[in-house]
């Protein structure tokens, strides 16, 4: 069955659950569990299966937005969630030690979805670190012959998340 589904992935703690809250028209479902590792320095809970929100279009059609767990050990969920999706948003935390490496990990793991549909990159916490600039992301993507929007975004801001979705839709329209 074709599902109208988009996926948000990215680093643990980057704000995927928050982003879905910002976009969803219905109370989102979050499968969160208490953090027991170094992530607990940043946050108390983490997504272990998926987050789920819905956008209801004017004609009543429901579009689902799934957030994945961020950590690589939950790769089994990535495969399940990516199945049949129409597009991908990757959120990258710019204040982490090597955000380009982080981005690469998600691009590699969501390779098939990216090749079949399209993706955009949202860069968060640019105010905390400017070691890696937006241009660096573009250079990196270009080196892998990927051309996609890279946009500074705050997952708490509905406006920013809408801008990401808008860019993704535009890219998919012109696929």
């Amino acid at each position, binding site marked *: 069955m074709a599902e109208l589904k988009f996926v948000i992935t990215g680093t643990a703690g980057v704000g995927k659950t928050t982003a879905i809250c910002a976009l969803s028209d219905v109370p989102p*479902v979050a*499968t*969160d*569990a*208490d*953090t*027991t*590792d*170094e*992530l*607990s*320095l940043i946050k108390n809970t*983490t997504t*272990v*299966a998926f987050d789920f929100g819905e956008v209801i279009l004017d004609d009543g059609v429901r579009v689902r937005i799934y957030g994945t*767990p961020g*950590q690589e*050990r*939950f790769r*089994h*969920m990535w495969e399940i969630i990516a199945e049949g999706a129409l597009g991908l948003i990757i959120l990258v935390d710019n204040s982490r030690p090597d955000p380009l490496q982080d981005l690469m990990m998600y691009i590699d793991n969501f390779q098939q979805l990216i090749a079949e549909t399209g993706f955009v990159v949202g860069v968060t916490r640019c105010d905390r670190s400017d070691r890696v600039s937006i241009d660096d992301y573009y250079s990196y993507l270009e080196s892998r012959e990927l051309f996609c929007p890279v946009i500074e975004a705050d997952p708490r801001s509905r406006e920013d998340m809408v801008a990401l979705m808008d860019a993704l839709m535009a890219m998919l329209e012109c696929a």
Partner: protein
Amino acid sequence: MLAEKEENSIKRSVVDQNLKELISSVDSIYAVVLSSIDGHPIARQAQDNFEDSKLAAMTSSCLALGEKIAMEANQNGCDFVIIQNQDGFLALKRVGRKLVLTTLADKSINMGMLLSATRQAAEKLYQEIT
């Protein structure tokens, strides 16, 4: 958090003892895994070689999903998530806020036996280590 880790290592022997008791309590139980609620393996007992790191992450996803589905269906107090297969059973049970206990048994087991052994071990673990 460091203190927590230290405490955990002290409790390692208690954990191992409990898992050993569980696996030896019923013949058909061939492996037990204790993992953190966010998907890290903590301890295991198994009859054969047994890879638990992937299983730990997957049981974490599965338990969270089972608990959410129960809530969505207006059923409170998710007790077990049970996976019944041609070859056997897996029973997942939450232990306090931070842990999950997974019991694996072959198909010869009586389901009631599996659940009660798992429950007893979970309750004992909860009292002794949390």
